[in-house]
């Protein structure tokens, strides 16, 4: 069942109540924001639980089993616990920076969904620079990590923050370059156009099939962007104890924590939209395809995390600049030649 007609009908309902278009637009915008926020909050809670389950089964454990069926309510209980915790600010912390870091992190993580096509016609706003917007807004997360590292007045946090800044600068480049290949073929930065460009072959005209190298580079860079193992240096537990969020407690910690999982969902959703055909697909409703592809990507990221060891910080830089960036340029060259030659 497609969801877009439901929203159109609701909007029509607002108009039929005698409201002007501007008021109706305002109400629908607020409603959409609430819906997207609610959806993502549920997704984040679900992903935390899922990660624990995936890790448990990879490690031959059960994971959470006590609260609800196979522990499905575990993260809700955990979030409630974190809400009640005392919110501690270290005495020598830079209070403003310390306060705003988790807020910025949280907001930026959610803001990326403005241009995300969840399904056929399910997009909050189809900006013509959609993909550029996502890349720009997700980069802000790094600033918040740096702020958290600096504001905490803790040496481990500082090292974590510095690492995250270095990592972001390095991996942003191959990430954007790998997305560029798709933009070149599509001829548009709008997310809707990118999805529409992959509608052929019954919804299996995926960019990943034409640009496997680009897809690979994207996955690697995205893993680094989401601070996941093998690139989870900013919060390397065994070296920096917890990294940038070491001084955070209570709800501020929960905001970092949830934002991390939302970020993971974001990079997976971009991968699904840009490389794996977005919501295109036969038989099932479009939003099911989108969710399925995204969750499959999330699973791959989780799989990485529970299998691989971590890179060292200089190796991380070397890998980005000496391997990924040249490969990304090669991919652009390849896409350019093929687009000209085979008229993609």
């Amino acid at each position: 069942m497609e969801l877009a007609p439901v929203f159109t009908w609701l909007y029509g309902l607002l108009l039929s109540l005698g409201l002007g278009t501007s008021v109706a637009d305002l109400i629908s915008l607020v409603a959409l924001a609430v819906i997207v926020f609610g959806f993502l909050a549920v997704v984040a809670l679900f992903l935390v639980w899922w990660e624990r389950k995936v890790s448990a089964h990879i490690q031959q454990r059960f994971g959470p089993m006590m609260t609800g069926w196979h522990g499905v309510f575990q993260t809700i209980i955990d979030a409630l616990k974190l809400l009640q915790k005392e919110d501690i600010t270290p005495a020598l912390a830079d209070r403003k920076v310390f306060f705003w870091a988790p807020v910025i992190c949280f907001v930026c993580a959610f803001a990326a969904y403005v241009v995300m096509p969840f399904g056929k016609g399910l997009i909050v706003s189809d900006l013509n620079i959609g993909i550029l917007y996502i890349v720009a807004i997700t980069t802000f997360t790094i600033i918040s990590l740096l702020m958290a590292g600096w504001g905490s007045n803790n040496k481990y946090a500082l090292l974590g923050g510095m690492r995250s800044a270095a990592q972001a600068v390095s991996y942003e480049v191959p990430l954007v370059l790998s997305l560029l290949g798709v933009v070149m073929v599509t001829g548009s930065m709008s997310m809707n156009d990118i999805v529409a460009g992959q509608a052929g072959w019954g919804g299996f005209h995926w960019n990943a099939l034409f640009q496997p190298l680009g897809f690979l580079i994207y996955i690697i860079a995205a893993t680094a962007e989401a601070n996941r193992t093998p690139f989870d240096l900013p919060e390397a537990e065994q070296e920096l104890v917890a990294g940038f969020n070491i001084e955070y407690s209570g709800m501020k910690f929960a905001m970092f924590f949830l934002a991390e999982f939302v970020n993971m969902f974001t990079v997976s959703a971009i991968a699904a939209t840009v490389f794996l055909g977005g919501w295109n697909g036969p038989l099932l409703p479009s939003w099911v395809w989108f969710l399925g592809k995204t969750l499959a990507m999330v699973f791959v990221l989780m799989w990485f995390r529970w299998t691989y060891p971590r890179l060292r910080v200089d190796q991380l830089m070397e890998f980005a600049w000496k391997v990924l960036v040249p490969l990304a340029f090669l991919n652009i060259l390849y896409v350019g030649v093929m687009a000209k030659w085979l008229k993609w």
Partner: protein
Amino acid sequence: MAEQLRTEEMILNMGPHHPSTHGVCRLILTLDGEVIKNCVPVVGYLHRAIEKMVENRTYAQCIPLMDRFEYVTSMSCDWAFCLAAEKLTEITVPERAEYLRVIMAELNRIASHLVFMGVTAMDLGALTPFLYGFREREMIMDLFEMTCGQRLTYNYIRIGGVSKDIPPEFIGQCRHFLDIFPGKIKDYEKLLLKNPIWIARNRGIGIITEQMAYDYAISGPNARASGVNFDLRKDDPYSIYNRFEFDIPVLNGCDCYDRYIVRLEEMRQAARIIRQALDQLPGGEIRAKVPLKFKPEIGELYSRIENSRGEMGVYLVSDGSTKPFRLRARGGSYNHLQAIPDIVRGLKIADMVAIFASLDIIMPEIDR
């Protein structure tokens, strides 16, 4: 512009409460960014005065304390102490007890190396091998539990023998473990050894040259990964180790990678020894007649055995009373920790963690 920027070295207190210092070791690191300029280990946070407490206890009461000397392989610690006491009095241990001691000590070596394997991988960010290692360790713990009722500090090896005979189902269960274990070691190897990240993190990191190994008196698997072919089970055979066929893995990589492989190979060899010991296991007594008020002859001696972390030595002085006059125990980790500042200078914090883990340092052995 660059020379106007003022940069400072940062002093980072790693520990005593830090997830990857394996106990409570404090390392004062002087950092230039992420590069370690200097490293000063501070020990003593786990000091329990075992060597002093021993002086006020009878020999039998010392054994539980020796269990805690190094709780990851407490069988070997008991053994080192009992061996010293037995040598002082010239007690002959019954055959069956010797075999049981070998079986238990080698099982414990495997258990200890499994902990090493899991913890090393975890310190490098791979969280899963830890659980795999503990899965197999659990089977060994079950064997210990059915034998002596304990899972960590066994108090099993006693002066003149062992405390209890093995239950009848022990042999079957132990053989089952030995049957599946080689396959599990292959799994561990497949999981990490060829992983490019693992290689990048371990190859050429934490070099201990052969000369350094001699200078710091590094022993055990760490020395054998630096090309030093020295294993007390072969070179100064105690108990009945000369009856078994086994190889001493020696590698020349001198780095973290080879220290990991040496231990994986040692687990294989330990399994080989246990299998032979089970085949040859004779019947009979499990404990020599030792008087309740055990009084060794007046004298002093140093006896050593091959622990999973290197040479475990006990220097025992007896004044002929029921209590030891002086005990000095030597664990391998102390020397390994001493080598760390030399190794890590100029490397990164992440390397420091890798090296610390690969040396298999454990703090109770150092602080005692």
